[in-house]
């Protein structure tokens, strides 16, 4: 299939982009890496009248330290998660997730901002952003604001972004040496959307877990924190009993739907298996 005709505007500043979008009304879309939007256009699942290209806005680029936060520009490509030293040092969970994101050609173009703004519940980065308790900086006609990750993902492909708002950057609290991370997913083929995936960020005092954030993806309409499982672990050592209790608690944390090839019960089973393996890694890192 071929996309319906649309007009194209290349913005060089955030303000220009916001204006161009506003002129397009409801029928405008921002385009960055295009790795989800372009197929949707070709399939005519979306048919905006106007595309606002944000690839040339300098402000959206780059990774830098801002106090206790790492600011990652919205245009940071997936492949840069693997190559950027600041990300390796201060947001290693993003780096751990990046090799699982599709294939190299897609990682070369796809952007962090695009992935988070789309909020595909099967994508890796939204869940990682959730596990990191990151904050998402958005610009809109009414000005700038920062939204906490847990408030950002609202429903299936629905976020806290108001119409016309543009995701500018993702701010991640700096990783510290007392933290441990783990990430993995179960996908039929390398690079596919996962049947289930999970990212974990834990804070430890010796082998005691003082704080843990567990975020699953591919388990429902939004990336999902497993708060009951977290509470089974927080304040404990990762003994087999604690891990088993956390796995059991996932039954209350997650409510996956029946898919035509993956029954809900199977997805929950896989989530438990995956959680057990990842907690084994966290515990084994002592």
């Amino acid at each position: 299939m071929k996309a319906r005709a649309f007009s194209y505007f290349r913005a060089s500043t955030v303000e220009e982009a916001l204006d161009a979008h506003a002129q397009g009304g409801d029928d405008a879309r921002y385009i960055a890496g295009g790795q989800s939007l372009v197929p949707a256009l070709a399939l005519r699942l979306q048919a905006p009248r106007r595309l606002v290209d944000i690839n040339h806005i300098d402000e959206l680029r780059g990774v830098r330290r801002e106090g206790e936060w790492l600011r990652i520009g919205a245009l940071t490509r997936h492949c840069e998660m693997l190559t950027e030293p600041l990300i390796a040092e201060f947001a290693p969970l993003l780096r751990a997730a990046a090799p699982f994101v599709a294939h190299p050609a897609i990682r070369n173009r796809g952007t962090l901002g695009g992935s988070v703004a789309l909020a595909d519940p099967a994508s890796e980065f939204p869940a990682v952003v959730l596990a990191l308790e990151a904050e998402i900086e958005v610009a809109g006609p009414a000005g700038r604001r920062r939204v906490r990750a847990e408030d950002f993902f609202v429903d299936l492909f629905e976020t806290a972004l108001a119409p016309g708002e543009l995701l500018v950057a993702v701010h991640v609290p700096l990783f510290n040496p007392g933290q441990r991370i783990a990430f993995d997913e179960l996908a039929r083929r390398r690079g596919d959307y996962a049947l289930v995936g999970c990212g974990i960020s834990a804070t430890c005092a010796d082998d005691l877990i003082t704080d843990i954030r567990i975020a699953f993806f591919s388990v429902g309409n939004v990336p999902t924190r497993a708060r009951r499982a977290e509470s089974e672990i927080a304040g404990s050592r990762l003994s087999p009993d604690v891990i088993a209790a956390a796995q059991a608690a996932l039954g209350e944390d997650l409510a996956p739907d029946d898919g035509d090839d993956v029954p809900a019960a199977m997805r929950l089973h896989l989530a438990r298996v995956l959680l057990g393996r990842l907690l084994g890694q966290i515990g084994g890192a002592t």
Partner: protein
Amino acid sequence: MTAPLTPLDRPNSYIGRSVPRPNAKRLLAGRGRYVTDIRLPRMLHAAFLRSPHAHARIISIDADAARALAGVHLIATGADLARICTPWTGTLDHFKGMTSEPQLPLPLDRVVWAGQAVVAVVADSRALAEDALELISVDYEELPAVVDLDEARQPGTPRANPASQSNICFRTQLDSGGVDEVFVAAAHVIEQQFSFGRHTPVTLEPRAIVADYEPDSGMLTVHHATQTPYQFQDLYSRHYNIPEARVRVIAPDIGGSFGMKLHVYHEDMAVVGLSMMLGRPVKYVADRIESFVSDIHARDHRVQARMAIDADGKILAMDVHDATAIGAFSTYPRTSVVEGNQVIRLIGAPYDFTSYRAALEVVFQNKVQTSQYRAVGHPIACAVTERMVDIAASRAGFDPLAMRDRNVIADDAYPLVSPTGYKFEALSHQACLRRLREIMDYDALRGEQAELRRRGVHRGIGIATFVEITNPSPAFYGVGGARISSQDGATISLTPTGEVRCAISVTEQGQGTEAIIGQIVADQLGLAQEHVKVITGDTEVTPHGGATWACRGAGIGGETALQAARRLKANILAIAALVLQEQAAALDIVDGQVVSAASRQPRLDVAEIARIAYFRSDTLPPGTQAQLTVSHHFAPQGYPFAFTNGIQGCSLEVDVDTGFVKLLKHYVVEDCGRIINPMLVDEQLRGGVVQGLGAALFEECRYGETGQLLNGSLADYLVPMAMEMPDIVIDHVETPTADTILGAKGCGEAGTAAASACVLNAVNDALTPFGASINTIPITPARILKALNRY
């Protein structure tokens, strides 16, 4: 140290040599010319509105708004095309009692699967044509859809085609007699049920066609991504009533076919009619979603099987029932029952037993048609047979490889006729088994498996023997009334500079047909291969022939080229003999030079003979007419098919907590007779194995209850990818057929034939400690976890 000389050390000894494909670099460099690349002057683009319903009556079509859109040239419905195209019916006479409804390019009043093309739009661009599709509204009245195979077979079920008496397309049976008595007396009887999901070929290049009808001359030229240009020349001629000589079908570079591109598709037939209605070239390229809902699918079988063995593990009898659902029509012109027919005739084929009974039931349903796809029927027959043999081995207390060694037909027992009527000239199961045991290091692999199992690592080893059908004679289609040739033709010429061009009716889809034809011609004529140009895929240029399918390119096409080259060589030497005043029999050709046959001393360049014959015929003796172009045809005689055989093995690991399977290594020992190009044979086997592994673990067309395809994209329909594929170790046994001089048989289906059976056996082997069993393909994590009761 120098290795001893072999026949391959002779000059121009190309048969048996790994020679790169001459077209490979061009294609890799992006210089391929596929149908998609063709842009003709005044060319328009077609797009099709498709049915959202699996079964519905068309009440009305409103296309006024679409017709008014600027840039739209034509909107055509079923009725419009029916005025110029005659209907077709996908039956063959030798399938007695078979039925199927007549088909037209677009339906008149009823749609029978979700995704069926209903209305055609022709516009200045494809995008515009798709804009117009959005403006067309079709009013449907939904009818009950028959979706599931088992449901379609139930009496009282709604019918996929309401005017027919039932959903039965075809039934047949085979019976050697006395089967019940053997089962009653047997020491062990094994009974199992199998289920095989639908899958679809997924060629890299989708279906593509440019039809160019020129009203003034009445000439139709069709650029068509197909394996079989001559078949389509005949069909376009007959169904559009154009004299055959005015229909030219050109198949340029083709990006894979696997049997998918030799069937009549409704859109393709429509595009020819659209070009005739407009008098302009019209192009249609299926996009990936259209491919999923309109390319043929394959498999979709349920098999019940019983096997009787004696106390010593000897197979005594098999009794099977195969039911298969083929969609709402049988495919034209090859039908949709060939797969089931081959399933019941290939089951048990490698094994030495005589009591066999089989029944086949082919039913209609409201889905896209199934038909011939790589290794037609073989994977099903092989999986059923080999799983039964494994269970029998376990019941009788034998190792799987030993069980096969005990039961395969002995290599010295040929020729013989199988209980299903197949005539085997010479197969080599025992030799292949011995080679497989060696290349797998089977005993060590079993030892490692036992050791790892103690540590909670669950590996499985699978073995599958197979028989493959190649080189079909007229018994395949011709006797059933289909105008599908079993012969091939070649026209081979010596050019004025002493090079050779060979225009041949077998075709190239990426597997290297042109390479092996060039090798054979160069070998036979004593020329360097770079001096041989091979031309394929144009009905205006090459003689009529069957083209490339059912593994006939090497065996039949190769023999055609060989015999043609020998005739041309005789003609060249006849002129050389006149020039040299020598007996032709005393001369030979080596490396482009006429030599003395006895001394191998060079006497004269072949180019010099060409120069004299073409430009100085006055210097030849009076009455001499040099014949430096030869046309030659070859049809297989003798055995109706050249059967090949082989065996595959695989090693894999099952993660019993996730149900994921990791393929560790795959092994193939194959006997395709004379090997022309070992590298290309190995490529064929590896590609075939990968397609079989895809079927085993990944590929399945999943449908919802209302007959909607649920996974019609490459994100949801999983094809095998490099990361999941194991190394594939290949070895050969060579048993040439005595039916031809060349001795080559086919090798294109062999990999696919047994790979899924291997994986099925290996997964079950891995699950043995859990008492779990799986007889369903594809073997998904969900099915493995279910078998293990993990959720």
